[in-house]
């Protein structure tokens, strides 16, 4: 594995490297942050409320006297893990329905595609809000609900991509041979079709994972995110919206955290996709 990584690193491009390094820093902060962040995220009156940038409070202090830098650090692991969890569930469901739809064909395919189309026709942010609303007041604000919303937004879109990737494979000789051998549908999908769509699904996963923090942040910004006082970045920006006139850093801090994460994921993906393309050419 380590050898393979070194090999990958050597052949990779600058986009991949820069993305990987920023992403690595983010993951490092997410894992270790809670241990070295100066204050607890919900600790109030740790500093003079509504003060701007200083050495002690790099991102300023909010209206309740909470240290925004500590809040941003503490929010990191939740944003990253919820994004990855949501995207993974979306990928699993999407890949399964997509591959199954392509394999089954006929009216099953038609029905699944129609339902996917219906989901996709609701703009994604609005679909996410619809799911959060439908979950009801008891569940709203639950972190896992954010992942679920991301998963439901993604699954139909990934399903569509997975289906078209599978359709390219399905007419190949080895799939027909497997069918003639009398293998079961599940086994053909798992052993013949799925391995040939890994590349597409991998790129799809990282593209979607890069957008998931934006989606979760948007829920938070609109006031439908993880329930306070948990410091999800979108909700920190929303909380400090009115402070922007006094000390813009209170908003810029969490904004930089969120956007650098997304930039790194996007760079990483673009690098990865280019790497896969060259790998394919070499084969």
């Amino acid at each position: 594995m380590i050898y393979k990584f070194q090999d990958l690193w050597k052949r990779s491009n600058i986009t991949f490297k820069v993305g990987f390094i920023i992403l690595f820093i983010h993951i490092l902060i997410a894992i270790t942050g809670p241990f070295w962040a100066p204050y607890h995220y919900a600790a109030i009156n740790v500093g003079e409320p509504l003060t701007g940038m200083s050495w002690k409070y790099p991102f300023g202090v909010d209206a309740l006297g909470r240290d925004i830098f500590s809040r941003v650090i503490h929010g990191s692991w939740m944003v990253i893990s919820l994004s990855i969890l949501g995207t993974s569930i979306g990928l699993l469901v999407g890949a399964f329905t997509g591959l199954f739809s392509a394999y089954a064909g006929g009216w099953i395919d038609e029905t699944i595609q129609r339902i996917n189309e219906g989901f996709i026709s609701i703009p994604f942010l609005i679909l996410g809000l619809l799911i959060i609303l439908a979950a009801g007041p008891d569940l709203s604000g639950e972190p896992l609900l954010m992942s679920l919303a991301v998963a439901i937004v993604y699954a139909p879109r990934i399903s569509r991509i997975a289906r078209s990737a599978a359709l390219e494979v399905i007419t190949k000789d080895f799939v027909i041979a497997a069918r003639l051998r009398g293998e079961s549908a599940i086994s053909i999908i798992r052993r013949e079709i799925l391995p040939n769509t890994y590349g597409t699904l991998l790129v799809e996963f990282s593209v979607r994972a890069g957008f998931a923090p934006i989606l979760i942040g948007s829920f938070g910004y609109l006031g439908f995110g993880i329930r306070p006082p948990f410091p999800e970045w979108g909700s920190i920006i929303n909380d400090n919206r009115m402070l922007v006139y006094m000390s813009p850093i209170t908003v810029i801090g969490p904004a930089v955290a969120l956007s650098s994460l997304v930039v790194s994921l996007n760079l990483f993906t673009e690098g990865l996709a280019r790497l896969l393309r060259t790998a394919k050419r070499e084969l």
Partner: protein
Amino acid sequence: MVYLPLILKRIFSALITLLIVSALIYGFLEMLPGDVATRMLGRTATPETLANLREQLGLNEPALKRYFLWLFNIFQGDFGTALTSKRPITEILAPKIFNTLILSGCAFILYLPLSFITALLQAYYKNKNIDISLSIITLIILSLPDFIIGTIMIIVFVVVFPIFPAISLVGEYSDFSEWFMALVMPSITLALVMSVYAVRMLRDNLIEVLDSEYIFMAKLKGLSKSTVLIKHALPNAIIPTLNITALNLGFLIGGVVIVEKIFTFPGFGNLLIDSIKFRDLPLVEATILIAASFYIFANLLTDILSIIFNPKLRKQ
């Protein structure tokens, strides 16, 4: 009109999608565990108030019957009454949709030249410094959530250089200059968010087209680089861009919700947020259904346009 059956088929499938969307929206909000009444009243509900509300809303009827009644009423242009303000939903929605259409129209007018000029510049100076720096800028904007772009706009144009008002409140009483001042920042934000996708797509398409043989031919004829680009390459890159524009409308509608919240613009997006906050389900259903039908209609329109413009599709 060889392509008429193709268009009719497309219209039919759009109608089916619309039907599925309406079922999805209604199903999500009305058929999940815990009915509308418990969700509206929340934790303060008592059995009596619940029973009263259920009676009032007609929730004792079976769900499927209520769905078809809802659908039937919509066909007659009646979206029902909002729970919070007790006013007809069409009356509440109409002015908000009007405002949002003006906002999206302005954003769209900015979006077209912004994406075309940027992509043309990038294709013209392919792999030169201008292309590379524009690529990096688009990738960064692409990675910025709309609420952060909007906030940056506020920091720059309200806090640092106080040019525009922070709050874009407009209404029937507003005159042209008030509308103008209110629209500048939200529409620039929306146009930026939309155009980064189109720019990346259009740049790649243009470069791909520039590699083809008829472009080579045009170059051999001695035409200038810009003539080749604008007269020969651009028309062929338009159809894919048309498709990405239709997809972008999804971003536009989602973006409108966020941008209207940032700039407090009195439109459809803020209405949606408020109706979700107050759990005004009939209003939420109507708003989301309209958003989805707008998206479906736009996609239908672009599909029809690409059928008409694409000679290859026409012959089949």
